[in-house]
């Protein structure tokens, strides 16, 4: 256990936690999009930024990938942090208008209008599906391709993957509801990368499995 200060309140927490975990343990809200307990943190959505002070040096850090150090001072709700989060959310809403998860956050954080040209994407590239497919399922059927503003998620050559086992993990984990699974009889379609699979229902457990 190490002593830290969160929003002016002193406390002791296990030292192997990340800043995000320590803060959330205190019941304090920090928005995240790319973080998931079951996955390695990616530190890519940056919504979880907080202000940390170590040995007198103050910086802004993504809490999910920042390890705790003794006597660390953490502030999660400074005006600057809140402002940065609002700008970030505004940019994401311009990219993906109408996504429920973003709108809920916007309501909570007080983002009222979007000043930028609206696009019509439905994926903000948090990469949870990619990490789940590789870390949990172990097949890496989907991945990132291209770079920068053209960065996208999909199976290689944006065609149906031949290693996907249609487990549906990506659809379950996706916070945007972008990946979804459609079942018609024994045919399962994974949208977004046009895979189709024949599945059979297991007579014992009732789950479906790929034949």
């Amino acid at each position: 256990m190490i002593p830290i200060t969160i929003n002016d309140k002193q406390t002791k927490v296990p030292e192997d936690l990340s800043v995000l975990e320590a803060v959330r343990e205190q019941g304090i809200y920090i928005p995240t999009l790319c973080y998931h307990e079951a996955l390695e943190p990616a530190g890519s959505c940056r919504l979880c930024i907080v202000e940390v002070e170590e040995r007198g040096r103050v910086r802004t850090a993504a809490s999910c990938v920042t390890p705790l150090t003794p006597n660390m001072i953490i502030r999660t709700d400074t005006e600057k942090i809140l402002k940065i989060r609002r700008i970030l959310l505004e940019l994401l809403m311009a990219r993906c208008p109408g996504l429920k998860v973003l709108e809920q956050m916007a309501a909570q954080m007080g983002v009222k209008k979007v000043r930028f040209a609206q696009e019509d994407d439905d994926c903000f590239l948090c990469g949870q599906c990619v990490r789940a497919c590789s870390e949990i399922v172990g097949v890496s059927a989907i991945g990132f391709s291209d770079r920068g503003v053209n960065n996208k998620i999909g199976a290689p050559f944006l065609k149906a993957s031949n290693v996907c086992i249609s487990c549906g993990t990506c659809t379950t984990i996706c916070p945007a509801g972008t990946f979804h699974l459609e079942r018609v009889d024994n045919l399962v379609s994974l949208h977004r990368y046009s895979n189709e699979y024949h599945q059979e229902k297991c007579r014992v457990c009732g789950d479906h499995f790929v034949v």
Partner: protein
Amino acid sequence: MEEIKILVIDDERGIREGCRRILESENYQVAVAETGEKGIEVAQTDKFAMALIDLKLPGMDGLAVINELRKIDSEIVPIIITGYGTVETAVEAMKAGAFDFVAKPFTPNEIINVVDKGLIQIKERQEGLELKQEKRERAVDELNSLSIVDEILARYNYNAASLIAILQDIQKQFNYLPQNLLRHVALTMNIPLTRVYSISTFYSAFSLKPRGEHLIDVCLGTACHVRGGMNIMERLERELGIKNGETTYDEKFSLKSVRCVGCCGLAPVVVIDDEFHGKLVQDKVPKILAKY
């Protein structure tokens, strides 16, 4: 167009000459024979695309003639002329290898239609052959290219850390990264295809599309930018009729912007296949392109 020759075998002169008149008016070359034996003799001296054969001939009958014609030229398309317009005889004739049949009496249009159908059949068969040939060549090609890739992989010891270098070498060899080769790399090295695909789309050195014979790199580094590199790029786009990142229709040129080739003293610079063209003004662009 090559002349299409049709052989008509019928013992009824009216039918023979009628067919000749109709077909010749459609610009076919027509030969006629009144018996099966004579028809076979004629077929041995020339190449016919099609033969119209009366089913009921004196001497050798129509089906036997088809068999004999086939022996002479397996590609000939036989069409039966039948006086008994019944389904049974037609089916029998088709079984014997006729492509189609036409029942007496027929109108000129009926004959033309059946001949046209036959010709379409010939054309499709030829295309099919070409396709097969192409496929076979491609398979050989693929076999060759796979072994070239295997050599490259072996040179790097199948080491995944050398993936970028491996892809660079493959691209050097094939001018771009063909999909089947990337799949082969992933399979052979036992790494996820997603990783190979990610890398080949992430780094600007790689192209997943075939590139032109000549690669035009327009430097848009800062020095070239302030000395008017963008104007040169726009001029090239107009001259070639393509946009940055594209390849001309005849696959002669691929146009790409690059970020600083480090020859800022020559700004603005265009590099075409390893040759540098420096201190450019737009007006020089057409002259330079003409050299290639």
